[in-house]
């Protein structure tokens, strides 16, 4: 059972990092209905991406042995949403993305991006792509690299510097734009990689492991950036093998295993299965008996209460408020997506 801390407050966290409203905002975020925040009027639009029955095998070695890449992948992505591809390393996420971007020719299947053929270079003017391993020309500075990509995108020269400034600002790299890429840390390369995806003001962003290499602050910034881009109506496809990242961002998730798409779910459906634990201050001498009916245990001066799903969490928090109890933190103890992922993994293991 994994424990993901979604809010830490009170004595355990030291200070409230974002002012006095932090707890309220975090709790509101947890207890709010998990429906995706899609811009109105977009649901009925044509898919931003349509992938149908995609197959790709690779040949390996002297005898050209056939290795399965992906088999029968089909999904469609609603405009203005965040769609996640979840799977272990080698599940077929990157191969799927490579096919979408025409870096790899599928053996079978069809792909259309924003209603256009995926292999038309002009379609790619409307896409921003961050590869899993963002290698760039190390002899260039961040600004020079962005200028190079801006030229490839056909950004007007008069507009170029302004756009580079904006993109550097969006990924908090204004200070480091003049530094050579060879001097960048992995996290900085990831950020400059994200900046280049935004240069052409794309309608569709395809991000392969966008959080990789980032420190916690960087992850949070990128998360906020992606949510902000979704609010602007951009469609985002991200691949990851990290469940919490997907839970925090995605509207819909496709789970890949051994090159096959084994499940597609909306996060709204899955969040119904999420369970929470509330950690309460319980100083010496205070009994926790006011929580009769809840399952709890005492660890030192912390009372850990199993709250259950989101409705029960809301009820427990109301109860604590009425009783004047101090809430230290709320943990996510198991999630619908995690359960689904583990269940599918077990099924696959058993089938072997």
């Amino acid at each position, binding site marked *: 059972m994994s424990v993901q801390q979604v809010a830490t407050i009170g004595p355990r966290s030291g200070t409230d990092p974002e002012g006095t409203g932090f707890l309220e905002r975090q709790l509101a975020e947890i207890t709010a209905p998990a429906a995706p925040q899609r811009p109105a009027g977009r649901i009925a639009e044509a898919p931003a991406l349509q992938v149908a029955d995609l197959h790709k095998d*690779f040949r390996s070695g002297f005898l050209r042995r056939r290795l399965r890449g992906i088999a029968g992948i089909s999904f469609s992505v609603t405009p203005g949403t965040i769609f996640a591809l979840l799977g272990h390393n080698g599940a077929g996420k*990157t191969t799927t*993305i*490579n096919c979408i*971007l*025409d*870096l*790899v*020719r599928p053996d079978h299947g069809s792909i259309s991006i924003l209603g256009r053929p995926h292999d038309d*270079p*002009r*379609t*790619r*003017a409307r*896409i921003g*792509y961050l*590869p*899993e*391993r*963002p*290698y*760039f*020309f190390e*002899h260039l500075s961040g600004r020079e690299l962005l200028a*190079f*990509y801006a*030229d*490839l*995108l*056909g950004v007007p020269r008069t507009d170029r510097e302004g756009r580079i400034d904006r993109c550097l600002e969006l990924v908090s790299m204004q200070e480091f734009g003049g530094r050579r890429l060879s001097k960048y840390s992995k996290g900085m390369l990831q950020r400059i*990689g994200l900046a*280049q995806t935004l240069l*052409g003001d794309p309608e569709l962003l*395809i991000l*392969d492991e966008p959080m990789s290499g980032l420190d916690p602050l960087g992850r949070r910034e990128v998360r906020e950036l992606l949510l902000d881009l979704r609010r602007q109506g951009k469609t985002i496809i991200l691949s990851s093998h990290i469940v919490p990242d997907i839970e925090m961002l995605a509207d819909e998730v496709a789970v890949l295993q051994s090159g096959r798409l084994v499940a597609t779910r909306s996060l709204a459906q899955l969040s119904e299965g999420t369970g929470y634990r509330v950690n309460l201050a319980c100083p010496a001498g205070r009994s926790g008996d006011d929580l009769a009916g809840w399952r709890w245990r005492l660890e030192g001066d912390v009372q850990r209460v199993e709250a259950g799903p989101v409705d029960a969490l809301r009820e427990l928090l109301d109860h604590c408020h009425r009783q004047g109890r101090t809430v230290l933190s709320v943990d996510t103890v198991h999630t619908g997506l995690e359960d689904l992922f583990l269940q599918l993994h077990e099924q696959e293991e058993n089938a072997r």
Partner: protein
Amino acid sequence: MMRTISTLAVSTFRETVRDRIFYLVGMFGFVMLASTAVLSPLTIGAQGKIMTDVGLAAMVVFGMLVVLLVGSNMVRKEVEKGTIVTILSKPVGRRQYLLGKFLGLNLTLVSMLGLMGVLFMLMLLMAPGSFSPAYLGAIYLTLLELVLINAVVVFFSTCVSAPLAAIFTLGTFVAGHLSQSIRDFGALQGTPFQQKLFNVIYYLLPNLEVFNMRGAVVHGETIAASHLLLATVYGVGYAGLLLILAGAVFQRRALRG
């Protein structure tokens, strides 16, 4: 489209500058000076001729070094490092990419030969009476030859590894200078099949002797304008065909993001 190609070409050119390819121009100057210093006392009265011979030959050698060292690796390196996937995720066609790379290396060759040419002319001016405008024609034909060889290396680098591309290109360069001999050898063979086979090889290989007027100009011959024109059409046409083939191969290539 033109902006995309020119952006890629300029970026390739800058990379060669950063990789200190132009140090070779310095080496060329050194070879010229050394040849003057060492050979002049041995060749009284033919100093200019020796300098011309050494200078024009050195241009081919240094040009080939650039083509083999840079050209064989420029596409392959980007494929292996993964820089290519970000480029091709932009509105850049694979053929445009290859053309940009090819033109970028040509820009390097033009700049190098230009600098070497200036150095060459300056040194010839110091040896009075040895300058001829035909030398300019010979340098131009050398450049055309290197452009064609550049297309050969781009073609091979889309099919095989960088070391193999360099070896195959060098083989093509040598065979290209011997293609007439290959045809003559075929004509001496008994069977019509052998004659046809050697003829096919002759026509498939680039005839690089078309561009080799270096020996002729050293001995005072001039180059006809019609020869320059035909060599240009032949060189550009052959390079164009190779690029079309390279584009077709590269178009099908799987690239990993």
